[in-house]
């Protein structure tokens, strides 16, 4: 590990970039886990989307408390539990990233800031005025445009997060349950006031800016790559046996 006080100047010689396209929720989470298992000294920046649209819930959440599973099934929305904490997210109009590395600040807050700074740079390169909002959000004019979550497994950090390119709060609450039906209208109004999107930004523009910003932030050369045969084989196994299973998704 790299000591905390040195992290602001950490530079990677290379970053392996994987643009894995659109996948199901189970395979998306499985690829992240396979990349954690297979990570070497070179960190990985993965860029991806979700097809069909999906809801991911945080590691500690109860899927039945948070998600209307019947509605998801009816409209063809995938549901999956993440490896990471945090809240339920509807993945539809967005770019999702994952950053996986063996070198990172040990302090949790510092590590979120460290990676989110690259995300902030990437958003601002597109003409927005974004800033990091600890612990794990990025906002433009006070409204959330990006949320991230991370886990640490056997000395490897995975941080993944969303960059909202569009937002449909009404659909979100058609799928997500709220703690109180009586307060549902107020909750929806609050979310509409607190969340926005990077409207006018395409997936490709965001991906390009993200790559450039990670290269800049970490002074690294980007190496475009594909998921290896071994990694995709492991990911497919995890998608089928873990991330599609009731044991995992209904465990809380």
């Amino acid at each position, binding site marked *: 590990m790299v000591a905390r006080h040195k992290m602001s100047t950490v530079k990677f010689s290379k970053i392996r970039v994987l643009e894995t396209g659109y996948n199901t929720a189970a395979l998306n989470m499985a690829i992240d886990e396979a990349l954690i298992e297979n990570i070497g000294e070179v960190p990985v920046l993965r860029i991806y989307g979700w097809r069909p649209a999906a809801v991911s819930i945080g590691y500690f959440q109860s899927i039945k408390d948070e998600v209307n599973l019947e509605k998801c099934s009816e409209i063809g929305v995938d549901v999956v539990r993440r490896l990471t904490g*945090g809240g339920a997210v509807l993945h539809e109009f967005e770019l999702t990233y994952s950053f996986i590395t063996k070198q990172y600040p040990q302090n949790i807050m510092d590590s979120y800031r460290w990676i989110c700074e690259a995300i902030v740079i990437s958003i601002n390169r597109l003409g927005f005025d974004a800033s990091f909002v600890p612990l794990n959000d990025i906002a433009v004019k006070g409204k959330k445009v990006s949320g991230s979550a991370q*886990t640490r497994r056997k000395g490897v950090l995975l941080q993944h997060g969303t960059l909202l390119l569009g937002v449909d709060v009404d659909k979100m609450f058609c799928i997500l349950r709220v*703690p109180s039906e009586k307060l549902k209208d107020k909750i929806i109004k609050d979310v509409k006031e607190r969340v926005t999107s990077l409207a006018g930004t395409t997936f490709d523009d965001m991906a390009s800016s993200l790559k450039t910003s990670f290269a800049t932030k970490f002074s690294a050369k980007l190496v475009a790559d594909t998921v290896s045969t071994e990694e995709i084989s492991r990911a497919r196994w995890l998608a089928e046996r873990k991330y599609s299973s009731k044991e995992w998704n209904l465990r809380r």
Partner: protein
Amino acid sequence: MAAFPKTNQSGINMKRRAHNVYKSQKLIRVMVEYDETENAINSITITGDFFLYPEEALETLEANLMGTKLERHALKQEIDNSLKNSEVYGFDSTSLTEAILGCKT
């Protein structure tokens, strides 16, 4: 909050299941089964949109809370002790204690 009594053969309530939703920095949901006579936790599940590192610490906490009295001091002490080597974002031992005690009210 809602509580669901279970009765023994004599019809006396011994065990209760109850849940509570508590807003701390993040939303905490607690489902607890407790022995009313002993005023102690039989089992507990804590869910929510919080962050806890390492993640496995939550299951350890839930296991350690089994048998703990549903009393403020005892709960807070067990939570503090169970999470002493963990980092939590979204609640603290005080708010989690209140979330658990809220199941009884």
